[in-house]
């Protein structure tokens, strides 16, 4: 009996995979071969470009980056100092940053690669009977040598802040509405941003300081859809 169930499950999985219903995944080396040939050690993460109406998104989001990039095994420059050095070199806005050739960052910082992050979503959606918080980012890593894109990923995470109707009836509904309002108003964006960082950076080949350095080429963790980014728009 048990064997039959297992075989049935296997058959279903195979069917799913062959009919393309399963999400398409690539290995790290399939998706980002240049990362393995260039092997950057130092990554300069520029202050994130904010494409949302939340004025504080960049400031809040930047605080998550030192730990996120450091954990991936790369040398990452402290974000406070990056802003300072850029100001000294005459670059005062993230819009200007997009126009600076990547090679300049090798000159200013000695960085092997530079990461451009765009915050696409930093939203709260509240519609009384439900709510959610959405955070979405696009990441592009360019070589400061050739200017080529070494890694890129786009991801969005949604946290549902809808309350639950436990009691049932009118009272239960009223409680749920209040819970939804409170949860939606108080949901912190940063933990959601960390989820996006986590999921996205998982697809990046790890750097020299990570224990899995040079062993992750065949990790099939890259969602193909996540790599489809219009990089010309940058």
């Amino acid at each position, binding site marked *: 009996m048990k064997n039959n169930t297992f075989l049935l499950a296997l058959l279903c999985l195979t069917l799913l995979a062959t009919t393309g219903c399963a999400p398409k995944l690539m290995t790290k080396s399939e998706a980002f071969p240049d990362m393995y040939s260039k092997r950057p*050690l*130092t990554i300069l993460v520029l202050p994130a470009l904010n494409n949302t109406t939340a004025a504080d998104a960049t*400031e*809040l989001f*930047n*605080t*998550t980056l*030192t*730990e996120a990039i*450091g*954990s991936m095994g*790369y*040398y*990452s*420059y*402290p974000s*406070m*100092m990056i802003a*300072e*050095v850029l100001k*000294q070199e005459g670059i005062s806005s993230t819009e200007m940053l997009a126009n600076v050739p990547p090679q300049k960052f090798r000159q*200013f*910082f*000695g*960085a092997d690669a530079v990461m451009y992050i765009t915050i696409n979503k930093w939203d709260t959606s509240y519609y009384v009977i439900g709510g959610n918080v959405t955070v979405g980012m696009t990441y592009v890593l360019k070589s400061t040598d050739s200017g080529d894109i070494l890694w890129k990923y786009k991801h969005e995470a949604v946290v549902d802040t809808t309350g639950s109707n436990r009691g049932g009836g009118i009272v239960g509904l009223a409680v749920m509405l209040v819970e939804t309002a409170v949860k939606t108003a108080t949901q912190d964006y*940063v933990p959601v941003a960390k989820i996006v960082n986590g999921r996205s950076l998982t697809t990046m080949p790890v750097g020299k*300081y*990570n*224990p899995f350095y040079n062993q992750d080429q065949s990790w099939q963790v890259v969602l193909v859809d996540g790599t489809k980014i219009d990089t010309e728009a940058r």
Partner: protein
Amino acid sequence: MKMRLLLILSAALLVLSGCVAAQKPYYYYGSYTASQLAYVKAPGDETLKQKIASIEDVIAKADQESTSKRVPPGVYADLAYLMALNGKNKEAVLYFNKEKEIYPESSLFIDKIVSKINPPEKSK
């Protein structure tokens, strides 16, 4: 009977502590990110103090609480920068040099910052 119980308990503790040790992160960050966030949300003396305290905690625990036994990239530099902002130039240079020591790839960048704190004497 009691001896046997004691022995079993000690053995269990050893095994468990081994399990805990295996869970050590590569880098110990402590409350580094949280304190940075708190400072950004409400810049002031109190949050700055917390930030410095969390960095000092990361530095103190790096050896015991991480498998790399290193202070993570950028942390010494962060502290150095905070010292420089407060006019504590000697401490700043000390911590910047520590950053360079552990991560020599940061030299170009660190040297630039240090030269702004301690400009080379032009009279020479």
